[in-house]
């Protein structure tokens, strides 16, 4: 792959069209999913 193709691919993977908003309260969701493991 040429340097230009490298750059094109890098640009494409960073496209704003591929950005997603994380779920609300993600850290709290993680704490909830971790709680059963932490209680063991």
């Amino acid at each position: 792959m040429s340097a230009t193709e490298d750059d094109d691919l890098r640009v494409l993977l960073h496209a704003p069209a591929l950005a997603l908003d994380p779920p609300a309260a993600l850290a709290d969701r993680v704490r909830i999913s971790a709680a059963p493991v932490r209680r063991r």
Partner: protein
Amino acid sequence: VKVEYDDAFTAFVAARSRHLLQTAYLLTGDRHRAEDLLQTALTRAYLRWDRIVSDDPEGYVRRTLANAHIDWWRRKPWREEPTGELPEVAADDGATAYAVRQSVLQALAVLPRRQRAVVVLRYYEDLSEAEIAHVLGCSPGTVKSAASRALGRLREHPGLLARSEEVA
């Protein structure tokens, strides 16, 4: 998890979850799977947070994302085949964004998971071949050959690289 570590975890998630969710999205091609994968990786990180917070928590999450994605696939009997799954794409943010998203995700869907992970880690996470080898637990030579095969396939995907001109 101590309070100060808990606060640090919350701050880390706030600062980095958008970037890491895009990593997961590029790996999976599906929003819901990406969210599940990220939550799994963050949960593993949270349970070890006191040990990883002073080192490289993002590297830990990135490594977990890539390997959890590949490991899931290893358990499948058809594991060496490309996903072949066409991404779900929403058309609510303009025709150009839709076209770029569809082109990228459908091109990545052609790749077997390890090759796909190499492409995402190299071109989205900007890791070196040596760093990718460390993340995936393989040799740099394996990364190099996987990247070469992946890029050969992507190059054959019609119009993919030309789409970069449409990205704002």
